[in-house]
């Protein structure tokens, strides 16, 4: 992973196209600074969480079968 993504408004427009999100003209200029900062931090977190000590951690999301849970009140 790149440590500091140098995101450009043109790249943001491409990202939006991949997400099938039509961006009105100029929207990419509004989004780019915040998205760049958040992506940088998110990539740092991904590097941390993909390190060996955390290999066995599972996401804090749970799939349940509600009808089979015990103790219905």
């Amino acid at each position, binding site marked *: 992973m790149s440590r500091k993504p140098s995101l450009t408004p043109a790249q*943001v427009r491409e*990202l*939006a196209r991949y*997400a099938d*999100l*039509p*961006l*009105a003209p100029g*929207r990419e200029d*509004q*989004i780019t600074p*915040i*998205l760049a*900062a*958040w*992506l940088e*931090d*998110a*990539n*740092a*977190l*991904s590097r*941390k*969480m*993909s390190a060996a000590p*955390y290999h066995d*951690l*599972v*996401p*804090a*999301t749970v799939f*349940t079968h*509600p009808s089979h849970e015990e*103790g*219905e*009140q």
Partner: protein
Amino acid sequence: MGRTSAELIDLTLAQAARLVKDRQVSPVELVDAALERIAAVDHRLKAYISVFADEARQVAKAAEIMTAAGHDLGPLHGIPIALKDNVATKGTRTTAGSKILSDWKPQRDATISTRLRQAGAIFVGKLNMHEFAWGGTSDNPHYGAVRNPWNTEHFPAGSSGGSGAAVAARTCYGAIGTDTGGSIRLPSAINGIVGLRPTYGRVSNHGIIPLAWSMDTAGPMTRTVEDCATMFGTMAGYDPNDPTTARAATCDYTAGLDQGVQGLRIGIIPGYFFHHLQPPVLAAVKQALDTLVGLGAQIVEVDIENIHGNISAQLTIESAEPSNYHQRWLRERPDDYGADVRGLLEIGEMLLATHYLQAQRYRTLLRNEFLDAFRKVDVFICPTLPFTATKVGEMTVVIENGVVEDMLSAIMQYTGVPSLTGLPSLNVPCGFDPNGLPIGMQIIGRPFDEATLFRAGAAYQSVTDFHGRAPKL
């Protein structure tokens, strides 16, 4: 009998409830006092989107008749309450602070609306908020920017900014807020009131417009801890309509309020909780800790090794999940969103699934570290946010050394921890800055142990008067 409206609206929720029960005050008087106060001050605050004057008076009359006949619906019998406008109320407009839902009238109550009604609450109105709860300023482009009653040039924080301002301004005895990344605790701190983010799964989200499903909660916002515990007891508990609610037992949350904090172990994380914050906030929270120590509590320094990184995880999850919920509207009605929320929703579409899942794995890591730390402490205490209220309209904040920071990241410096870990967290007012703007501290507890938070908060309020001060409007 014979109390003025000003005297009535200055009562706490618990005081008003006792007077109704003893037939010394009528629900009609309470509702009239609340409506009169709304009419007098809300044009300056913009805390309400809808006011139910006729309906509230009719329900109050019915409550008065029931009281006279010896019937008591519950702890909130005859008490004027207001709801954040993302909580469904049957047959009445529920906008979520948006243009998109400006005409939506739900066919059913949210579960908590039903439970509050069953406990005797009278709804006087629906409260303004940050659009779709996605933001922390309550600078709403469709219904007006909510103003802070302590200084109307300043913001009330958010997203439950209307709830915070309405309670602080004494236009109702309690309000409902919702909290994903801090939206109950932040406006509670900034407006000088008490607010509880319950344990995730403790209170039903059924019938509430979601922000981020895996972190959304709803809770009470009041002037005192006793009021908060009283309201919470009517809301908490399993709901078959919400699969995320837990079957954990509830209790009488007012029962232990006078038990004090002798021997209570308060955890602090010096390198994080008291780092990067405005000096008046630091001083107020340290003074509060000293006060609690004086009451018999003890301070335990704890290290949470992986606490850094929580803001990124918070922002990633809080971006991705709303962008999923709003995906159709963002394509069909993008111009109906305010500029900031539209941008945040667009950004959420451009984060990767791997980012989202790494953030969810980080939650597991952080939760495990806190659960481990709770073997050494009973609660954690920290500031609720690192600064006091900024001016309305500002999207940046200066915390220290003149550095300008993005509001959204800065405001969640401390509130993100309970949001990610699902732990309950209570804001309690603990001071004012030199400009007279409120400061709050955050008490964080074990899962489903809201009672200990109330006990600590009540002990603090028993020897301080910050919660008793009223803004001059």
